């Protein structure tokens, strides 16, 4: 192979003391498709943002392009260095034409006037080379997702980029569009471009990848050449860490079995969730695993009535129940802990006391409306003691607390209604290790008293550590279930195989 077009040596990135990337060495050659894989949060997007100039790497590392050291700075830095990125969410202006989008920020003007015709002529050859079936003057709003991707690629080629980074480009494409995209990617490779292809999908990596690099916890854990690309090897590289001992699981998963509390039947939203059924029994902790975008949070929102469903329904303790608002779900005893506590959960300016009591204010109130402040105070004090929430007093605004304590305040609000079903969406995201293990033991204790618990988590060791069985979602469907047998433990490999759809390839 020829000289490397991109070399990264010892590139690190630290956010507020947390290492998102640790001394990554990555080499990419012209004319290759280099697949980049890793779990959610392994550091793929950080790496990409460093190459685009959105993040500045820690001092000490080096990036070379065609052998010359470069500094990529600012949003245009990547493009200036010859790197173009095509994001999952395309970055086109739908109200402008194809030509205007391609020339965005570098418009041709003559005597201060926009030279539209010159721009249209300028993009013609590139669109032709890409086999585009639309005109430079077409409004982007009128194009399909596949066509928009072509515009993005055309923009990259027009900027004479030598390195093209594609982040899960097929997420919003149909199968036929994906096939056309693959053909185009191979054509670009033969024209000498280097393509860094980020994907969770094993089949795509098999189909396209000349080399695969795997990231885990911010480290580059291995690179495989084409002949060595095998599902089991990649998965081992992606997950390969031990389940540490701080997960707590004392409750007996079989104690309450046979008494289903929550049953979702064939629920769909006509978009991200495509007919999902699952059952959670009393005293059971069920994990809901899957990659980002698999539809887990969306399914939870359907269950609690936060999003409108197009089909399916719920059964609570064996009886059908029609839940259309989060309020109705709470009344029925189904509580949901959001994955985004700052945007969707807490009221940061309100006191912890109000935050904790919010769901039961009406129930506690005198004369239906007058706040019972003694009861509220008592409940908040009890929550502070029971969940060991650390704040000066219950009157301080929730926004001033640490992530772990905020999460416990939010959890207290849900526990105040004494839920029959508790759905926890990423319960330990952004939470320090100490609070994590406290949250695990809270979950464990709730299961002991018979609460049916569904835990959505992207943290596989966590799911394996605290759950009795794991349901795996992929692309809006329930892909399967991984159960813990007396002799066979839950394994990350089994879950990842279901989540990425690799079980078919290995079979």
């Amino acid at each position, binding site marked *: 192979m020829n000289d490397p077009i991109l070399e990264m040596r010892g590139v690190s990135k630290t956010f507020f003391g947390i290492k998102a990337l640790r001394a990554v060495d990555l080499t990419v050659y012209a004319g290759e498709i280099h697949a980049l894989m890793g779990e959610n949060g392994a550091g793929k997007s950080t790496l990409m943002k460093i190459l685009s100039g959105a993040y500045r790497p820690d001092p000490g590392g080096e990036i070379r392009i065609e052998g010359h050291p470069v500094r990529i700075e600012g949003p245009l830095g990547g493009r200036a260095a010859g790197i173009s990125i095509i994001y999952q969410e395309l970055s086109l202006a739908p109200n402008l034409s194809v030509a205007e989008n391609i020339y965005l920020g570098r418009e041709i003007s003559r005597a201060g006037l926009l030279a539209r015709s010159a721009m249209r002529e300028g993009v013609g050859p590139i669109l032709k080379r890409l086999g585009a079936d639309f005109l430079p003057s077409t409004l982007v709003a009128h194009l399909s997702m596949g066509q928009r991707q072509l515009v993005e690629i055309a923009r990259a080629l027009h900027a004479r980029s030598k390195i093209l980074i594609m982040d899960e480009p097929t997420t919003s494409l149909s199968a036929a569009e994906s096939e056309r995209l693959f053909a185009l990617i191979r054509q670009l490779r033969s024209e000498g471009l280097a393509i860094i292809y980020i994907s969770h999908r094993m089949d795509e990596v098999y189909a396209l990848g000349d080399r695969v690099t795997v990231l885990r916890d911010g480290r580059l854990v291995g690179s495989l050449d084409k002949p060595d690309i095998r599902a089991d090897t990649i998965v081992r590289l992606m997950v390969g860490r031990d389940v540490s001992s701080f997960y707590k699981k004392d409750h007996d998963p079989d104690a309450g079995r046979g008494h289903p509390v929550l049953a979702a039947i064939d629920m769909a939203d006509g978009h991200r969730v495509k007919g999902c059924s699952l059952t959670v029994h009393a005293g059971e902790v069920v994990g809901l695993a899957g990659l980002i975008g698999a539809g887990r949070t969306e399914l939870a929102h359907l269950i609690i009535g936060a999003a409108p469903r197009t089909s399916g329904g719920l059964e609570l303790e064996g009886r059908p129940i029609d839940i259309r608002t989060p309020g109705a779900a709470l009344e029925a005893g189904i509580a949901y802990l959001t994955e985004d506590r700052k945007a969707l959960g807490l009221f940061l300016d309100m006191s912890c006391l109000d935050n904790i009591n919010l769901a039961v204010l009406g129930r506690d109130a005198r004369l239906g409306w007058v706040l019972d402040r003694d009861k509220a105070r008592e409940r908040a004090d009890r929550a502070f003691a029971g*969940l060991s929430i650390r704040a000066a007093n219950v009157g301080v605004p929730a926004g001033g607390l640490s992530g772990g304590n905020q999460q416990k305040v939010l959890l207290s609000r849900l526990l105040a209604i004494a839920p029959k079903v508790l759905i926890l969406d990423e319960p330990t995201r952004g939470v320090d290790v100490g609070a994590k293990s406290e949250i695990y033991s809270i979950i464990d204790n709730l299961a002991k008293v018979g609460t049916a618990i569904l835990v959505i988590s992207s943290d596989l060791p966590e799911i394996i550590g605290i759950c009795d069985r794991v349901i795996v979602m992929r692309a809006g469907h329930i892909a399967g279930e991984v159960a813990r047998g007396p002799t066979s433990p839950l394994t990350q490999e089994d879950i990842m195989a279901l989540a990425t759809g690799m079980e078919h390839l290995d079979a």
Partner: protein
Amino acid sequence: MPDNGAAKSEPAPATTNGAAAETKRQRVRMLISALGMLPVLLILCIGFHFLSEGRFFTGQNLGIVLQQAAVNTVLAAGMTFVILTGGIDLSVGSILAASAMAGLTLSKLPELGMLWLPVSVLTGLGFGIVNGALIALLRLPPFIVTLGSLTAVRGLARLLGADTTVFNPSIPYAFIGNGSLTLIPGVASIPWLSVIALLVIFVSWLVLRRTVLGVHIYAVGGNESAARLAGIKVWAVLIFVYGISGLFAGLGGAMQAARLYAANGLQLGQSYELDAITAVILGGTSFVGGIGSIWGTLIGALIIAVLSNGLILIGVSDIWQYVIKGLVIIGAVALDRYRLQGSART
């Protein structure tokens, strides 16, 4: 419930100290945002007293200030509810005019005359609920909806009196407009208009701080999505706040009608919404919602009244009064920004 003492005890001392300091800081901050404008009010009063050579702090002048502040205080109380949810109500001046017109027209009917006061207030409530319904149920932006009703309701107010001024020199309950409640005979009395305004403030405080609805209002303003997920009926809260803003505007209309014995659909209440919004913002209520208190609004309304009164007392021309009041509005919003920087919102 959790039983891992190690994780618990280790960082505890540092956190407690830090948290105590943090609470103290937050208390100071809350005090600043609650009382923030009180010193400004006092300084203005004292300043005007000296500049006017002792004419400010007289029983008569203070009575005038309180009376002048009354209607704006009532409107601003309603506006506080709305702004606490992150909304805005531009239509209060028009609703005030329409309510006064409706009330005065009715007061001239011999057999129904006594009903004019409740009819005024209910007219305001009706317009407010329409605003609220459009905002909550059709999900239209509050600015647009109330901008529309600012114009439309003004038209209706003119329609009600056939675009003339309606007089009624023998309007029932005229005392609320011009009478005073005697506290100590011959020594101290307080205008009925001011009594009503203070009652409105007190009732607003009760609702905001002592009822479930009050917490829900703060919650919707603080984080609407979270409020929805927490099971709060956001639509009901929104209809309530616009309804109460309309109701208070109707009450303000009744107060004006009783004071003037007359109403004119074109002129009454023109740009009152601006004074009401200014009072709320001066009072420390955040424009994005979720933070604020009704006591601040009272202080804000008093600042505006003192400013008007004091500038006249010291002989500043009408034109310069506009300039100075405008600068006060901008200064108030600058203060709002500054306050938000220090809040828990990140």
